[in-house]
């Protein structure tokens, strides 16, 4: 029987880039230390092959670069990522960059055993539950344009011009994207959350989403520390389409300076008017006329 909570490593394994090659070497070093390794190519074509290992183990994903193919693969198959590292970020910490050749440089090879040890010690990605906040029902105003209807909450939300919202209660806020984003992006198929504990400045990335049409970052309207991510949304990103302002929340933050953040934000009425104008402008751009 497989050992409970044994590390199961999914590296990006990208063969044409140095960062990918490093992710593979790290996986092999961890294999020597007793972890299981998943070949992303075989997993892609025959996921059942690794089912048992995945069910009993703890998944460590090693991405090579920001493209995050290994994380994406994991999410496509509904795998729970327990730990995660990105080779380019490990390199950055050493003031190094991945080179043009996919062959790993000698200096970098020397670093890998220490990195493998670090990866073994990585803490699990954990998310707290939201507690007692954000339970009150939300009411909406809406306007129609052409065949589309856009909803905006009536109160309690603040927006930036990147169409992201913060629902503020006391010193906490939940963040998400507006109805406009979900309609323009169409079917949302991925939500990549930020790490719990991440410090956010205003306009920093608070996770990202991908739809069948496009990809975008959730650009934080507020500054603070991420205290929770919406695990339900990780499992069902389409919640953003069905309920962008309530069930489709992405992350929760402990606010650090909302009084000053709010000077740069629109309230619900302000965003309602802003969105109305924006939709008209987009329509004119696309189809001409007034």
């Amino acid at each position: 029987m497989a050992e409970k909570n044994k590390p199961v490593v999914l590296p990006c394994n990208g063969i044409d880039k140095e960062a990918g090659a490093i992710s593979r070497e790290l996986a092999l070093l961890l294999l020597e230390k007793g972890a299981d390794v998943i070949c992303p190519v075989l997993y892609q074509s025959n996921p059942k092959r690794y089912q048992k290992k995945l069910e009993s183990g703890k998944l460590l994903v090693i991405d090579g670069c920001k493209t995050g193919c290994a994380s994406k693969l994991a999410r496509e198959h509904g795998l729970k990522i327990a730990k995660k590292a990105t080779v380019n970020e490990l390199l950055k910490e050493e003031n190094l960059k991945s080179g043009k050749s996919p062959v790993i440089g000698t200096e970098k090879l020397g670093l890998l055993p220490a990195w493998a040890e670090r990866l073994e010690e990585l803490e699990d990605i954990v998310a707290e539950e939201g507690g007692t906040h954000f339970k009150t029902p939300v009411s909406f105003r809406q306007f129609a344009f052409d065949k589309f209807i856009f909803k905006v909450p009536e109160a309690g939300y603040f927006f930036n011009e990147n169409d992201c919202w913060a629902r503020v209660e006391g010193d906490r806020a939940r963040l998400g994207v507006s109805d406009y984003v979900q309609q323009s992006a169409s079917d949302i198929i991925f939500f990549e959350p930020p790490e719990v504990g991440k410090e956010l400045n205003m306009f920093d990335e608070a996770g990202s989403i991908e739809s069948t049409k496009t990809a975008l970052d959730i650009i934080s309207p507020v500054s603070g520390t991420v205290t929770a991510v919406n695990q339900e949304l990780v499992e069902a990103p389409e919640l953003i389409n069905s309920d962008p302002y309530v069930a489709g929340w992405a992350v929760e933050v402990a606010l650090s300076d909302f009084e000053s953040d709010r000077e740069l934000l629109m309230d619900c009425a302000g965003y309602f008017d802003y969105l109305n104008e924006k939709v008209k402008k987009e329509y004119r751009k696309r189809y001409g006329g007034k």
Partner: protein
Amino acid sequence: MQVSEETFMGVPRKDIPWCPAIDYEKCDYCMECDEFCPHGVFERREGEEKKLVVAHPENCVVFCKVCAKTCGPDALSFPDKTETLELIKRLREDKRDG
């Protein structure tokens, strides 16, 4: 018809220097960024040395960096967010003070 000026947070968009910069040492012209960007920021230049240029920086969504994520060779960079935000705040104040 007079076309109203594009603004971001009440500041003329043209005054905010937010757009990607291409590091031509690293760019391998895979064109993933151009294929991704729905705002037409990039333009391809067939037959020229620089086969991809940032032709329409004003179309770039301020604070959006998603194209950089599509870039395998990590050839796209953006201005510092905090500095950009400080600039926007300053321009808003200038406007308010007339």
